[in-house]
């Protein structure tokens, strides 16, 4: 404790000048916000203002001495950060309201656009039956795209009358038959591929039987 505290209050010059007004919460906020103490304020308020002003005074040369080292470290760290094109930087590069986050904000939009383009392209290709067979088959079974067609159809099987061998429907290749079998279920597929007991062959259209005399060649 200061020796001054042991003396009678009349012997305390600062206390005498300052009066007894204590520091209030609003005084604290004023001082911390950088406002000067009011002229009529207690001496301690003025002392505090001086103290805080000194603590937050202008920068000294010593404090700014590390600038070169700091910038060198910055260059080292940001060495791989090459300037990006004006478009990629967004409107910020042209002085607009964009900024460092322009790319970050655009990324989801760009990703969504790319995804939409892929979906539309695949749908169009599936509708035009232009996809590779396995993918076309998948599209066919998934959302009803045309079944994959084949450039080299299998030769039509000629079934001698009374033969009990399997008969392939005309125009329906074995692979397509397999695909249909997958789609329609094993039971249906076996029914289609099984020989007709009465020599009737299944046509292209479902459920229509073609008599032997009317079978197209």
């Amino acid at each position, binding site marked *: 404790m*200061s020796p001054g505290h042991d003396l009678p209050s009349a012997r305390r010059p600062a206390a005498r000048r300052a009066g007894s007004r204590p520091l209030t919460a609003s005084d604290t906020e004023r001082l911390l916000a*950088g406002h*000067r103490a009011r002229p009529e304020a207690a001496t301690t308020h003025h002392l505090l203002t001086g103290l805080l002003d000194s*603590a*937050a005074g202008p920068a000294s040369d010593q404090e700014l001495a590390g600038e070169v080292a700091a910038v060198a470290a910055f260059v080292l760290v940001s060495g791989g950060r090459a300037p990006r094109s004006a478009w990629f930087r967004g409107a910020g590069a042209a002085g607009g309201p964009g900024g*460092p986050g322009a790319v970050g904000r655009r990324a989801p939009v760009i990703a969504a656009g790319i995804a939409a383009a892929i979906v539309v392209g695949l749908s169009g290709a599936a509708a035009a039956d232009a996809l590779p067979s396995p993918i076309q088959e998948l599209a066919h079974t998934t959302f009803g795209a045309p079944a994959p067609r084949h450039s080299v159809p299998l030769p039509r099987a000629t079934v001698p009358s009374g033969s009990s061998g399997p008969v392939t429907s005309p125009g329906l290749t074995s692979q397509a038959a397999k695909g249909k079998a997958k789609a329609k279920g094993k039971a249906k597929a076996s029914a289609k591929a099984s020989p007709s007991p009465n020599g009737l062959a299944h046509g292209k259209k479902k459920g229509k039987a073609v008599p032997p005399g009317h079978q197209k060649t």
Partner: protein
Amino acid sequence: MPGLIKIRLSIRFTRDPHVSTRIVTSVLGPEFPEVMRAAVHGDETAFARLWRDNQPPLLRYLRVVTGESAEDVASEVWLETSRRLARFRGGEGEFRAWVFTTARRRVIDLRRYADRHPMLVTGELYELDRPAPDDAAAAALERMSTEAALELIASLPREQAEIIVLRAIAGLDATQVARMVGKRPGAVRVAAHRGLRTLAARLAAASDKQHLTREWHDEPRP
């Protein structure tokens, strides 16, 4: 550099006369978004401007809370800031709060390290070199220098000293400081108020002592 001086001068002369001239006032102002954008894209000059604005208050904060390690911690803070600059969003005030938040985390890491690796000395080395609060108050009154003022603030309990520096030197408001230190804004205001009251008492006591000394010297001897 001349531009920076010009901005500082213009702020000084256009300022409200009732507001003191502290470095916490934003210097870049409306230029900040452009400077930040350039720094993010690797512009050294822009980064240097950000550094010049924030290094002095950062160093003073670190001097109060860590003492001798201040410059080392400040270097680490700027290194981390350089790495994460592209992720920053916000204005000049938010940038300063971001830098000081990084600094505070480093200080906490440093304290944890010190706790895990205790030394033979009791207390921290920088505290041994510090003057007693009464001496610091007298020095602050006599010299009114930045160093003397920081020494007096550092003589407060750690939390009060940190809050006063963050508010008065870094220029952060109670809400920002509360977010940093994990307290409510009301608790931050109370801590700052207590700290300032203690400082005021010490300054008054030192002032009394000076006056008494002068009176004693001026009194006629029988």
